[in-house]
């Protein structure tokens, strides 16, 4: 299977990865190779096979509704790129 430049561009946009034309082109040929490998799967008959999401058939455990977390804002924001007045700053969001 081979991907188009437009496929790669769309995926890069969805994944929020800036790519120039040369990178898109390189990615296109490498990804196409990988998808050739992946295509081996398609021939397998999987009717009536349940998809397997987890290694073990175990149910979700439930946590008691009790506050256990402390305020760690100072420690957490010490490693943040940009903060002010306790808020994480990002370029203006326009809705």
């Amino acid at each position, binding site marked *: 299977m081979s991907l188009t430049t437009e496929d790669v561009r769309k995926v890069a946009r969805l994944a929020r990865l800036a790519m120039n034309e040369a990178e898109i082109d390189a990615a296109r040929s490498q990804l196409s190779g990988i998808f050739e490998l992946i295509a081996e799967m398609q021939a397998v008959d999987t009717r009536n096979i349940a998809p397997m999401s*987890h290694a073990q058939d175990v149910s*979700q455990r*439930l946590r008691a*509704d009790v506050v256990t977390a402390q305020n760690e*804002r100072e420690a957490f924001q010490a490693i943040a790129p940009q903060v002010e*007045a306790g808020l994480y700053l990002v370029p*203006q969001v326009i*809705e």
Partner: protein
Amino acid sequence: MKWEIVIGLEVHAQLSTQTKIFSGASTAFGAEPNTQADAVSIALPGVLPVLNKGAVERAIQFGLAVGAHIAPRSVFARKNYFYPDLPKGYQISQFDLPVVGMGAMTIQVEPLSGNAKPYEKVVRITRAHLEEDAGKSVHGATQGMTGIDLNRAGTPLLEIVSEPDMSSAAEAVAYAKTLHSLVRWIGICDGNMQEGSFRCDVNVSVRRAGEPLGTRREIKNLNSFKFMQQAIDYEVQWQIDTLENGGKIQQATILFDPETGETHAMRSKEDAHDYRYFPDPDLLPLDISPEFIEQMRAKLPELPEARRTRYTENYALSAYDANALTATREMADFFDACLAATLSPSPSPAGGRGEQVAKMCANWLIGEVSAQLNRDGLDMTTCPITPTQLSGMLVRIADNTISNSGAKDVFRVLWAEGGDADAIIEAKGLKQVSDSGAIEALVDEIITANAEKVAEYRSGKDKLFGFFVGLAMKASKGKANPAQLNEILKAKLAG
């Protein structure tokens, strides 16, 4: 051309848990920014979600309250998109296997216009699923920047999706109000719309009668019933106008601006529709046993519908009264407590006395109590009088100790100062005169002093009766038993 309106709602109810859906951080409203954003809330590398039992319990309770199927196995999925208030870059939600399946709710619709009569309608609930809330963007902190507060990130939400069963703004509002009342009634959501605890997205489309469904536009994040009605009215008209002028409706997400009363499309996110849902590998399937469901059923309070039936069948209250009394659980509980205290020591609800007392309780609650709450900006949870206090007064009305006007005086004092009805009656001398001799003497005096008017009355000017009642009441300082007074006055004036 006749247009049909098709409306469906998606309501996000914040569940009233102490902690977030996937971590032990507090969900209390109004904390300093990011002080309730723990490692999971800010999505530090390596942290993992663990599901809050309280959120699951509330979802099950909701499902049971709307008669829905509770999925024995449901699955959490990731909804992937980038946004600064979404720290993981995905929202954990439920996609193809939600915890609550198809249910239904009966709503009472009060048409907004004309003389149309109130009516009932059943609205189907497609599903309800658990998911996490996003954080909040704070604008204007620094020039050109947006501040992100993740205190709300991870707060549990129940997204309740209806079928497109509503065909007017009135029905949509009635559905939203009934739902709002129900989630508060069963105690799973505080319903505080200002704080965003109950948010409505409304899908609206229009079509010509008999035609297939039109393209819908989704009005996002309505946080008041008034805005909901305005937004739907505006949007419906806009869609009809657009179509009648030969235009086409594009599917869109729109916002309502309360300032202008208009709706407008949000800046579209180009890839907004490719969320790449897949089952969250960090969370295992949520298995709910029949025992767990029964535990939750046992914890459910009597639901509003059952209570309305009890009120109309046991106490012969009107549908209107029953509805008003079950507007909130606090109101209904107040009514039940007040009624029981008033009927005590013989609380038998059956028979004429029960019905009379129930009607009296209902009238006072729906009338005076509600009006006072409204005037003072209070609600049932902050009501200054207790059911016992009100009952103390109702007992004295029922046994003719005080008149209705006397009762209003007692009520004013109870409201403002508290205390006990009997003590207030005593202190203010509100006990009404039911001694027929005393009333007769009083009436005789009035007849003598107003011979001219009496003559006019007797010659057929019936309207003067009220004038005599007024005089007699004044003479008794308002204490005469009104029924008795009427009777005696009528007899004496007849000559």
